[in-house]
C-alpha cells in the first residue's frame, strides 16, 4: 500500500537515479539491459497509475508532505496517465531496438553515455507529465532538453554537432521565454501551482500583465514543440541525430511539449482568457488554428521537396504537430479527442518509420532517396514496416493514422468549418504525394545492377520494429483503447474550460 501511494514521484525519480548508474556499469551491453529494465519498470508504474486514475479519478501527490499551493504537487489526470503510458511504452520499444543500432552508429566509448542520457531524457519527459507545479515543469523541461541536445550531438558526422548547437540555442531561448512569462504570471498571482494559478488569474485585475505573460509562455512552448513558424531547429536535429534518438524524439519529445501547451492553455489560462475581451475578430484559438493549418500545409510542401528521408519525415512531424494544434484550437470535445488520439497514433507511426530508417541506414548506409532504388526488394521486412508506418501517416483507412484525421475531420464538419475540413484533406493528399515518391523509388525502380545482396537487419531490431509496425494496424482497427483514453483525457482537459 505504502509503495503504491508513492508511485507518482517514483515514476520520474526512478529513471533520474538510474541514469548515472549506467556510467558506473561502463559496459554498453550491461547498460542496455539496465536501461531496458528501468524503462520496463516505468511502463509498469505508468500503467498502474493509469488504472488508478481511470478507477478513482485525479491523483494528487504532495511532495514532502507539504500542502499544495505551498509545496510542489504532482497531479495526475487521465491525460497525464495517457502521456506517461505512451512515453514509457515508446521508450521500452526504442530501447529494445537500440543496442544493435547504437553499436553501429555510436563509438564504443560513448555508448554508456548514450544510455545515461536516454534515461535522463526519459526522466525529464515523465516529470513534465506528472508535475502540477509550473516552475517544477520548467526544471523537467530543461532536464529533458539538455539531455536531448547531447543525444543529438552523438550523431554521425560533424553536422550533428551544428544541429545540436542550433537546437541548444533555440531551445534555451524557448525555455527562457517560458520562465519570463511564468514570472509575469507569478507577479500577479503569487502562486506557481497550476490549479491555484488558474483560480487566481480569473480574479487578477491586471489583464495586460496576464496577456504579456501568457504570450511569453505560449511562444516559449511553441519553440519547444516546433509549431510553425518556430520549427527551424527540428529538421536539422531529427536528420543528424542517431536513428534511435530521432525515433524517440519524434515519438515523444514534441508530443510532451504539446501536452504541456495544452495543459497550460486549458487548465491554467483558459478560465481567465474567456473573461478577457480581445478586439473582435482576434481570438486566441483563431490564431492557433491559423498557425497550425499554415504549418501543416507549408511543412508538407517542404517535406515533398526533401531528398533525405529523415529530413522529409522531420518536416512531416512539423506538419502533423500543426494539425494537432489546429484540432485542439477548435475547442470542441470531438476535436480535442481527435487531436489527442492523433497524438498517440502519430507517436506510434513516427516511431515505426524512424526505426525502419535506422535499419535502412545500417544496411544500405544512406537514407537519401537516390540511394534507395529497389530497397523494398533488398530489405523486404524493414521497408515493409516503413510502408505500414507511411500508409498510417497518410491516413489510409484501416491504419492508426486514419482514426485521428477522421475524428478531426468530423469535428470540423460538426461546426460547419468546411475550410478547415478541406485543408485537413489537402494535408493528407500532400502526405500521400511525398510518401508515394518513396514507394516509387523503393519498390518500382530496380536495384542498381552492381548492388550487393544485403542481409535483413538483426532480429533484436526487427522484433521491436515489427511490434510498432503491427500496432499501426491494430490501433487502426481496434480503436477502443486509444479513442477511449483520448476521450477520457479530453474530458479531463476540458473539464473546467468549455466556454
Amino acid at each position, binding site marked *: 500500500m505504502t509503495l503504491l501511494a508513492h508511485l507518482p514521484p517514483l515514476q520520474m525519480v526512478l529513471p533520474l537515479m538510474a541514469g548515472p548508474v549506467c556510467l558506473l556499469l561502463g559496459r554498453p551491453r550491461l547498460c542496455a539491459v539496465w536501461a531496458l529494465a528501468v524503462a520496463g519498470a516505468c511502463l509498469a508504474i505508468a500503467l498502474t497509475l493509469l488504472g488508478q486514475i481511470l478507477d478513482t479519478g485525479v491523483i494528487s501527490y504532495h511532495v514532502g508532505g507539504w500542502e499544495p499551493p505551498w509545496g510542489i504537487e504532482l497531479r495526475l489526470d487521465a491525460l497525464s496517465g495517457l502521456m506517461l503510458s505512451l512515453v514509457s511504452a515508446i521508450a521500452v520499444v526504442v530501447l529494445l531496438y537500440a543496442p544493435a543500432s547504437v553499436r553501429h552508429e555510436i563509438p564504443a566509448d560513448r555508448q554508456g553515455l548514450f544510455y545515461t542520457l536516454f534515461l535522463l531524457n526519459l526522466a525529464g519527459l515523465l516529470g513534465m507529465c506528472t508535475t502540477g507545479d509550473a516552475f517544477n515543469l520548467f526544471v523537467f523541461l530543461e532536464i529533458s532538453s539538455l539531455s536531448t541536445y547531447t543525444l543529438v550531438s552523438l550523431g554521425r558526422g560533424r*553536422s550533428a554537432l*551544428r544541429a545540436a548547437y542550433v537546437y541548444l540555442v533555440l531551445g*534555451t531561448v524557448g525555455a527562457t521565454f517560458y520562465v519570463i512569462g511564468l514570472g509575469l504570471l507569478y507577479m500577479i498571482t503569487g502562486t506557481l501551482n497550476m490549479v491555484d494559478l488558474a483560480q487566481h488569474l480569473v480574479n487578477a485585475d491586471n489583464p495586460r500583465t496576464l496577456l504579456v505573460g501568457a504570450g511569453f509562455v505560449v511562444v516559449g512552448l511553441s519553440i519547444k514543440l516546433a509549431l510553425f513558424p518556430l520549427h527551424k531547429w527540428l529538421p536539422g536535429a531529427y536528420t543528424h541525430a542517431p536513428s534511435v534518438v530521432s525515433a524517440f524524439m519524434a515519438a515523444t519529445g514534441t508530443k510532451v511539449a504539446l501536452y504541456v501547451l495544452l495543459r497550460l492553455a486549458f487548465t491554467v489560462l483558459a478560465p481567465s482568457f474567456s473573461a478577457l475581451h480581445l478586439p473582435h475578430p482576434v481570438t486566441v484559438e483563431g490564431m492557433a488554428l491559423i498557425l497550425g493549418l499554415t504549418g501543416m500545409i507549408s511543412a508538407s510542401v517542404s517535406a515533398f521537396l526533401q531528398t533525405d528521408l529523415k529530413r522529409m519525415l522531420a518536416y512531416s512531424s512539423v506538419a502533423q504537430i500543426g494539425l494537432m494544434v489546429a484540432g485542439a484550437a477548435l475547442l470542441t470535445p470531438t476535436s480535442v479527442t481527435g487531436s489527442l488520439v492523433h497524438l498517440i497514433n502519430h507517436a506510434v507511426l513516427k516511431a515505426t518509420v524512424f526505426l525502419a530508417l535506422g535499419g535502412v541506414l545500417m544496411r544500405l548506409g544512406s537514407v537519401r532517396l537516390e540511394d534507395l532504388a529497389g530497397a523494398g526488394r533488398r530489405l523486404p521486412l524493414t521497408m515493409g514496416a516503413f510502408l505500414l508506418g507511411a500508409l498510417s501517416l497518410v491516413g489510409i483507412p484501416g491504419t492508426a493514422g486514419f482514426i485521428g484525421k477522421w475524428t478531426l475531420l468530423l469535428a470540423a464538419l460538426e461546426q460547419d468549418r468546411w475550410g478547415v475540413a478541406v485543408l485537413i484533406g489537402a494535408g493528407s493528399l500532400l502526405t500521400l504525394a511525398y510518401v508515394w515518391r518513396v514507394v516509387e523509388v523503393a519498390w518500382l525502380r530496380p536495384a542498381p545492377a552492381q548492388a550487393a545482396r544485403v542481409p535483413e537487419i538483426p532480429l533484436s531490431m526487427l522484433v521491436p520494429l515489427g511490434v510498432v509496425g503491427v500496432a499501426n494496424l491494430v490501433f487502426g482497427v481496434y480503436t477502443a483503447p486509444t479513442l477511449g483514453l483520448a476521450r477520457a483525457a479530453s474530458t479531463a482537459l476540458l473539464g473546467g474550460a468549455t466556454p
Partner: protein
Amino acid sequence: MTWETAGGLYNYWIFILLMMIGFYTVIARGNLIKKLVGLNIFQTSVFMLYISMGVVDGGTAPILSDRFTVYTNPLPSVLILTAIVVGIATTALGLALVVRIREAYGTIEEDELLALDHEDFPAGRTSAGDTP
C-alpha cells in the same frame, strides 16, 4: 504613468534592456561563442526580473527574528537559484559543443560553417538548419 513611477521601476527597465541586448546578440552575431554570451545575458536578465519582484522596500532576508517585521519574498530568489544552475549547465554544454565544432570544422563562424555544410551535402538541403 508619471516619470517618477517610471523611474522608480528602473530595475525593470534594466531587465528589458539586458533582455533585448542578449536576444539581439543571439540573433545577429555569427560567432558561436558570441551567440552563447548573448544567450547568457538573455538568461541573466530574467534573474533580475524575478529578484526585483520579490524585493520588499526595507525588507530583510527572511530570517526568523524579533527585530525584523518586514521580509523580502524568498521564493523568487530560490527559483532563480534553480534557473542559475540550469543556465550554467546550458552554457557548459554549449561551450563544449563549440569546442567540438571547432575541432570538426576548424572554424566557429556561422557563415563559414554553412559553406562547409554545403560542401558536405552539395544539394544544400541537408545542412543542419537555418541560422537561429
